[in-house]
């Protein structure tokens, strides 16, 4: 299994509080991705990174920010959590990105509940 660790695995917090989720990889892969998974929507991309300090928005980036200061860590921050951000969040990594048809390897997810 690819070495991807997401933390925390579960979190319950209140509306309006900041939340940071962490993704740590030991594979030295260049690309890292944050997705959210909701019933009926499959996986939707929030943000992704193609290198240290290089990030770009996905299709559902509003209300989220990311940072990547080291190859191995990709942080997702909800500046002021809202109930609509209750979801399961997945981190994924890829060696060279989709243009070379490389697969993405996923962590086991973080279940986030915003009350």
């Amino acid at each position, binding site marked *: 299994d690819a070495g*991807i660790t997401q933390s925390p695995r579960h979190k319950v917090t209140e509306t309006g509080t900041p939340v940071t989720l962490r993704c740590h990889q030991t594979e030295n892969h260049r*690309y890292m*991705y944050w*997705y959210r998974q909701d019933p*009926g*929507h*499959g*996986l*939707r*991309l929030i943000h*992704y990174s*193609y290198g240290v300090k290089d990030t770009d928005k*996905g*299709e559902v980036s509003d209300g989220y920010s990311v940072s990547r200061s080291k190859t191995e860590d990709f942080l997702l921050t909800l500046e002021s959590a809202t109930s609509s951000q209750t979801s399961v969040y*997945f981190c*994924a990594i890829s060696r060279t*990105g*989709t*243009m070379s*048809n490389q*697969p*993405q*390897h*996923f*962590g*086991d*997810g973080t279940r986030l509940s915003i009350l």
Partner: protein
Amino acid sequence: TQLLEQSPQFLSIQEGENLTVYCNSSSVFSSLQWYRQEPGEGPVLLVTVVTGGEVKKLKRLTFQFGDARKDSSLHITAAQTGDTGLYLCAGGTNFGNEKLTFGTGTRLTIIP
């Protein structure tokens, strides 16, 4: 925006039966990947198809990429309870966009 629609959304069949799930789009993809996800875990890659009309087999699973590279299908022969899970297709492009577009998913339940 590229969209991938999967059908059916839910499928429940008896062990030993055959089934096919579909992944359709109006957009062309340079590659199509299929993932399986089990409860409490992240998706795991099953296969990647890259050529229009390509067929790949993985034991009892047969994957096909449409000739126009807009659709794909997954056929399972003699389903087993271990096939239960969420099946996701994902399309990639070579337009300088390093993102996958994921389908809406098919939740498959195999009844013993």
